[in-house]
């Protein structure tokens, strides 16, 4: 199937949909169950509910979340959060039993690893014969600001999905979605040996979350000075369409200039999701997974209850040409 469109959606619209599947993660953060706890207040359409929980890092609020999802009749599936092959098999198992040509899925990725939502998109990208149409509502609950912890060394620094391979006679351009951890983006740029003029920085604007913004600026001050200003792009988490268009235009431009293009989403999950959507559309992009993985320290994150969840609607169609 191919992506037909991806667009910004809303909580209200989601509550009026009739979903066939609701999938959440029962992670170690308190916010893992926050969205569904609100959603179920107004949503009652019967559907298959699944909670994905990690084999590792059973700590912090994990037990509470397990109980919450059990109480709300979710079927638990325990998995390795970074095992792409296993995840695709799990998704295949979940969806291949349905008889409908057209399905709708609500997918709360707030507490999921990149691999978990990348695998879902890849599964539908390569699934040609089961469905006519698939619509996925990707839901994200922002967390309240908490200070970054010291950067751990990475367990993973590799292409996120099944890769393309690009010949080495082309230059490389690196697009970094900045996070607020000190040294992480800088280390990656030096690791990949990318020239500063070929590096592009995406980071959330001040209006989104001032504390987060200030920390990004503080902890990336060196590269923000070194990378030419024309390569800096700010985005608002609430304006998905704009961010998607901005990133897609840049990727298009760089591909047309015969670059090998890497996107490294180190910051907000929204940017990771957008990067993966573009990877699904442009097979010659590479999205990097840079993370300490299970070596990383589990940190409690509370939901920001003052903000509406960010929802992106992604539609796959068996016949359409990709548009996004």
């Amino acid at each position, binding site marked *: 199937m191919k992506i037909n469109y991806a667009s910004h959606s809303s909580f209200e619209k989601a509550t009026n949909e009739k979903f066939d599947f609701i999938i959440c993660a029962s992670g170690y953060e308190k916010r893992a169950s926050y969205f569904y706890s609100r959603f179920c207040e107004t949503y009652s359409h019967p559907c298959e509910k699944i909670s994905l929980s990690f084999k590792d890092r059973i700590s912090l609020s994990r037990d509470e979340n397990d109980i919450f999802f059990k109480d709300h009749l979710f079927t638990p599936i325990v998995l390795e959060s970074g095992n792409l092959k296993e995840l695709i098999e799990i998704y295949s198992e979940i969806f291949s039993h349905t008889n409908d040509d057209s399905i709708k899925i609500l997918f709360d990725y707030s507490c999921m690893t990149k691999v978990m939502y990348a695998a879902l998109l890849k599964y539908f990208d390569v699934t040609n014969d089961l469905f006519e149409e698939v619509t996925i509502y990707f839901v994200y609950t922002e967390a309240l600001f908490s200070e970054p912890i010291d950067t751990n*060394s*990475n*367990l993973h620094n590799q292409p996120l999905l*099944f890769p393309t391979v690009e010949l080495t006679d082309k230059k490389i351009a690196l697009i970094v979605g900045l996070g607020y951890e000190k040294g992480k983006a800088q280390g990656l740029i*030096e690791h990949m*040996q990318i020239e500063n003029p070929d590096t592009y920085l995406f980071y959330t604007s001040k209006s989104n979350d001032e504390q987060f913004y200030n920390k990004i600026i503080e902890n990336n001050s060196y590269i923000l000075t070194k990378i030419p200003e024309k390569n800096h792009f700010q985005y608002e988490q609430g304006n998905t369409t704009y961010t998607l268009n901005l990133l897609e235009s840049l990727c298009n431009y760089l591909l047309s200039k015969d670059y090998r293009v890497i996107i490294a989403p180190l910051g907000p999950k929204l940017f990771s999701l957008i990067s993966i959507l573009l990877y699904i559309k442009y097979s010659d992009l590479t999205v990097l997974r840079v993370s300490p993985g299970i070596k990383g320290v589990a940190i409690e994150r509370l939901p920001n209850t003052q903000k509406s969840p960010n929802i992106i609607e992604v539609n796959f169609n068996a016949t359409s040409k990709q548009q996004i």
Partner: protein
Amino acid sequence: MNQSKILYETFNARHFSHADVAETFVSNSDFFEIAKNAHTVILGPRGCGKTTMFKMLTTPALKNWNPKTGKDIELKENIPFIAIYIPSDELWKKQLDSFKESLSHNPEIIKIISNALITTNILSNFCKNIKDHIECTFEKDITKEFEYAQNLIKEWSLPDAANSLSSVRQALESRKNSLIAKIEKAIFYKDQTNKGVDFHESYFLDYIQCIRLACISFERIYNNEKEIKWALCFDELELVSRDFFEELIKKLRIAPPNILFKLSSGPLADVSDSLAQILHDFTIVKMWPYNYDQEPRYQKFCEEIAVQRIRKVMESKNSKKCEDIDMLHIFGDLDYNLLALKNYDFKVNPSAKESEPNSLTWHVFKKLGELDLNFARFLDKNGINPENPVPRVQKHQDTIIRKIKEIVINRLVFMRFDPNNRERVSHSSQTRKVFPIYYGKKTLLNICEGNPRFIIGMLADMFNQVELTENVSELKITPLDQVKLIKDISDRFMAMLYTYPSSQKINNKYYDLEWLITRIGEYFDKEVNKGEVKINPANSFTIDEKLGREFYEILKLGVDLGAFIKLDQEKNIISKDNKLTRYRLSYLIAPQFKLPLRLYAARNLGRILRNEPITIGNQLKLGEGNEN
């Protein structure tokens, strides 16, 4: 190259244009070795300039080079071969590794597709290089290019649509794309039997054979059938699989005599001992200070690069020629004595000779004896009174006082002593953020480890942070500005090292480069700055044959990246030699552990990593080793 570009640059030569590489190129003896009409193996850590050297051998770079000396001019005019630059890089490595992992259930397909991808990549790079060479060397001749492209199509089994070298590259790109499609097919349809994945004849092409045929065609069409020497420059082989590296070495034996191989890799070439023997017949160029005798040579090289960069910036700022640039004048010289004077209010008698009462050395030794019980014990043990540390016999002046003075000042500068427990020491909070001993011309050149990328990066930062004067004679960088620069560059180097996914899982515990550097650095810190005082503390290590593969892989990565410096006694050692080789932490990492930039004694790594399962065969066996 304008000033703003210098301000932004990180300088990785791979993707610099030939003109940019040539414009700032500084030749050295390594370059003349590499440019010889011989097979060559170039070893060195990341950033040491291997790529620059290779790129400088290519026709467009030589054409853009403005040689400075007679030797340079001679080389430019008489380069004995046409160089073909074939790079690898981190992205290529990650993509290949990732596809292999995805297809791990099907090793046969991995082998065939790997070979096809690697061959396609080499041919595409050949095509790019030969196109550049033709454009630099000959008048445009569409007929000849058409004929040449047609030959390549035939010899490389490409579809018959290409009529120029650009189209040949496009056809190779299409071949690569069809390979990727087959990878996806094999992954998602779990084609265990390879059924449905057709193996076109082009998948089995031998790249050396393809290149040989392309060379013969070129000689016929562009050189009246006269034979030409070619140099295939395979860069960054540390990033390719060991299989490919070994395959390449085997091909050296059967390559035609007019094709030379120039291979670059990390300091620990990853080849079996038997294949390493083949490489011993070739010219080996090591591009790092691999022993003490080499340090001055690399310092001079870095100094030349630094002077050239400073001149360029000053000239672009002032629009006037700037000839006399003196690094010593700009950066000064580290004076350990001054450090001691700065921190303590010693009443020094300037006319007192070294170690006489009230000399600076006497004050320093006396002070540390008061603060640090370990040092007082050391003096006692050597027959020197801690309260009046005058050597009783002259030989103590040479064998103890002078030898240990640097360590004594290091302790005084960096350590905080507990007045209630003179054995308890910790790093001084004042020096935690600033590293006061790391400034001065010699220190800066030492810290760069002969690595052009480090010195260029350091200067680029300096130009950004320091207000440049109009006149170069007034340009002085204060020690404080220098130590800040060093701290920043050291921190960024560490951040880069930690970005590598270097983890090895042993007994359910992860070990990685960060862990290894920290354990070794803390051990050396304890040897030099804390605990029992030693005239010759350990700040380097050896390995032995018992070191397990997982730990060796972490060490090797650290050596490739320049975190550990491999110190060989002999130039021809290209892989590991447990008896003669030792390793130290890069001087760029030394500030993280408050270590002086000097080589002292070595310990076996097993002893340093005591209580870790580092030995081969039995992973539960704990680290051990004898003092070396």
